[in-house]
């Protein structure tokens, strides 16, 4: 990286103009730190010691007397960092919207709303579970396996001070992390569209975000055993993408394939929506990856550039693979290639050089492309190929991070075969936990309420039957119903007789 003016000449980034000098490798090794009651350091996200040392206990909003006299304590992080992290948090939220469009365009029109709602509802359901217990289980306590309930219900989170990881106010760090939990749960939905009951899905992601997501986030980011082992995951390749990809495949298997799967061609109903979604995902991913530096600094710039470059390489390789296979480049293929490239660079974003990012983006296209071709002929109805894009793409990225990591570009260690082994171990732990946890939760939810919509609902489309709405309607033949005529309960859209919708 060429020397450049320090963006914070008078700030907390004193002498260094180069990531390694600002972030001595020892800082990146969580294992070298004594156990921290509120672990702050995600791997590779450590801040200068001075910041950590100056971090006081943040003043809680729940202390009215103090709040009246002094107001919230001033944040310890510089204004630039706070501003960037708030923007990053909002950008990750946009990814959920992008995902809704990406998935929504790929399904049949009769399921467009249901599919998009599966992403949107995660904003609410997982927002609540993460605020309730998920955040606390992932980012509190000294255990290497699971956090405690010290921050349950947002207890102790403050808008000022430096209580969050990276010297950020803990309230802001919570918001950033919450958006990660939301997008992770939403990713799973792509595997089970067009057949899963909406209520069962809501219950599933509520439990999954607490029982599966929070522990894995703890292991990798919250001072857990994978972090102590030195596993590298800059922005969530393991926690978010491998986790969601494996969960998606398992949930699709538990649910069974769609009735029409393998019998009829089920085509994307609105490919332009999918392209828009892929674009929004890329846009939001700058917050996901560059925001994971937890600061506006040189590492976040590296992550930003890599987030631009890796998907570009994947997109081109995907187009070439399309050309070789069929002689034509497809729009759905380009959209998929963008997502795979983004997934692959996620664990490596702040750890590798831009040239390595191009290499990662190039290599990662191949296994995911091959799996998508195989999956379509298999019995696994992972409807929108979540496992191929996120599971396999995430594994490619996690393993390649172990080879391409470079201390000159912000990584705590250089890539090596030993690091590759550590990465493989982290992949195996996350994938195994996700598979077992997802299976158990799916069975549990299935014991309480049916997981699948009935055959009539599936044939008619979930929009009309489950939501009483249609994505595309011109209203012809729709008569206003006076409220008085509806009675205590509106007639069901699909009675047991299965009358036409």
């Amino acid at each position, binding site marked *: 990286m060429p020397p450049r003016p320090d963006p914070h000449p008078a700030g907390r980034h004193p002498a260094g103009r180069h990531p390694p000098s600002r972030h001595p490798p020892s800082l990146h090794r969580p294992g070298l730190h004594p156990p921290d009651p509120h672990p702050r350091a995600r791997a590779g996200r450590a801040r200068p010691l001075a910041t950590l040392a100056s971090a006081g206990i943040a003043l809680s909003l729940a202390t009215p007397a103090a709040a009246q006299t002094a107001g919230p304590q001033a944040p310890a992080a510089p204004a630039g960092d706070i501003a960037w992290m708030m923007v990053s948090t909002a950008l990750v939220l946009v990814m959920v919207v992008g995902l809704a469009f990406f998935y929504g365009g790929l399904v049949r029109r009769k399921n467009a709303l249901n599919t998009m709602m599966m992403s949107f509802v995660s904003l609410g359901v997982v927002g609540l579970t993460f605020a309730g217990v998920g955040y606390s289980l992932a980012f509190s306590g000294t255990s290497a396996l699971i956090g405690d309930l010290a921050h349950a219900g947002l207890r102790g989170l403050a808008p000022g001070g430096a209580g969050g990881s990276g010297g950020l106010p803990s309230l802001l760090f919570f918001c950033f992390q919450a958006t990660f939990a939301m997008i992770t749960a939403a990713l799973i939905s792509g595997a089970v569209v067009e057949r899963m009951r909406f209520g069962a899905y809501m219950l599933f992601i509520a439990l999954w975000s607490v029982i599966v997501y929070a522990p894995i986030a703890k292991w990798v980011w919250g001072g857990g055993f994978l972090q102590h082992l030195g596993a590298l995951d800059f922005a969530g390749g393991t926690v978010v993408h491998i986790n969601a990809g494996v969960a998606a495949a398992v949930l699709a298997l538990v649910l069974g394939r769609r009735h029409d799967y393998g019998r009829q061609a089920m085509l994307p109903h609105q490919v332009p929506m999918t392209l828009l979604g892929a674009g929004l995902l890329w846009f939001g991913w700058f917050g996901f990856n560059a925001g994971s530096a937890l600061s506006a600094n040189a590492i976040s710039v590296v992550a930003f550039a890599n987030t631009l470059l890796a998907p570009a390489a994947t997109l081109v390789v995907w187009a070439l693979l399309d050309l070789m296979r069929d002689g034509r480049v497809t729009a759905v293929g380009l959209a998929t290639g963008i997502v795979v490239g983004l997934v692959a660079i996620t664990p490596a974003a702040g750890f590798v050089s831009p040239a390595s990012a191009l290499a990662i983006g190039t290599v990662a296209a191949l296994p995911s492309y091959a799996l998508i071709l195989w999956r379509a002929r298999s019995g696994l109805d992972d409807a929108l190929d979540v496992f191929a894009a996120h599971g396999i793409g995430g594994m490619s990225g996690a393993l390649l991070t172990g080879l391409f990591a470079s201390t000159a570009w912000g990584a705590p260690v250089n890539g090596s075969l030993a690091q590759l082994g550590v990465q493989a171990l982290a992949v195996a732990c996350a994938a195994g936990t996700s598979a077992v946890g997802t299976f158990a939760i799916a069975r549990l939810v299935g014991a309480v309420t049916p997981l699948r919509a009935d055959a*009539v609902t599936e044939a008619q489309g979930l929009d009309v039957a489950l939501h009483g*709405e249609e994505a595309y309607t011109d209203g*012809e033949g*729709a008569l*206003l119903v006076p409220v008085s005529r509806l009675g205590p309960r509106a*007639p069901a859209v699909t*009675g047991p007789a*299965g*009358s036409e919708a």
Partner: protein
Amino acid sequence: MKLITAVVRKEKLNDVLSALFQADIYGVTVTPVRGHGGEREPVQTYRGMTVKMELAEKVRLDIGVTEPFVEPAVEAIQRGARTGSVGDGKIFVIPVDRVIRIRTGETDAAAVTPATATPAAAATGPGPVHR
């Protein structure tokens, strides 16, 4: 010659088409239509507005066939479209005065697809695979 017009559930269209193909009947025109049979109207809600969808979306098939194919066609449509619930649709069999194939100028029996005079053993069981 007869014109067979059928109105069926749109989600059963693929089943009807494969049943027709199995019965060796390939000439079909499909139109999206809306209408009202005797079925219960579904209620939809958009914010505060509750509406009853009086017109249900269906598809209509128009099939011109020679006499020997009338029964196989009717049976194939029933086999593909039937769910047993209100709203399965109707089949109309209508006499036809003339049929002209525009490309060749052939008329009547020669102009409908298939041109063969007798149906294959398609009326019962699975017929020949769609070629």
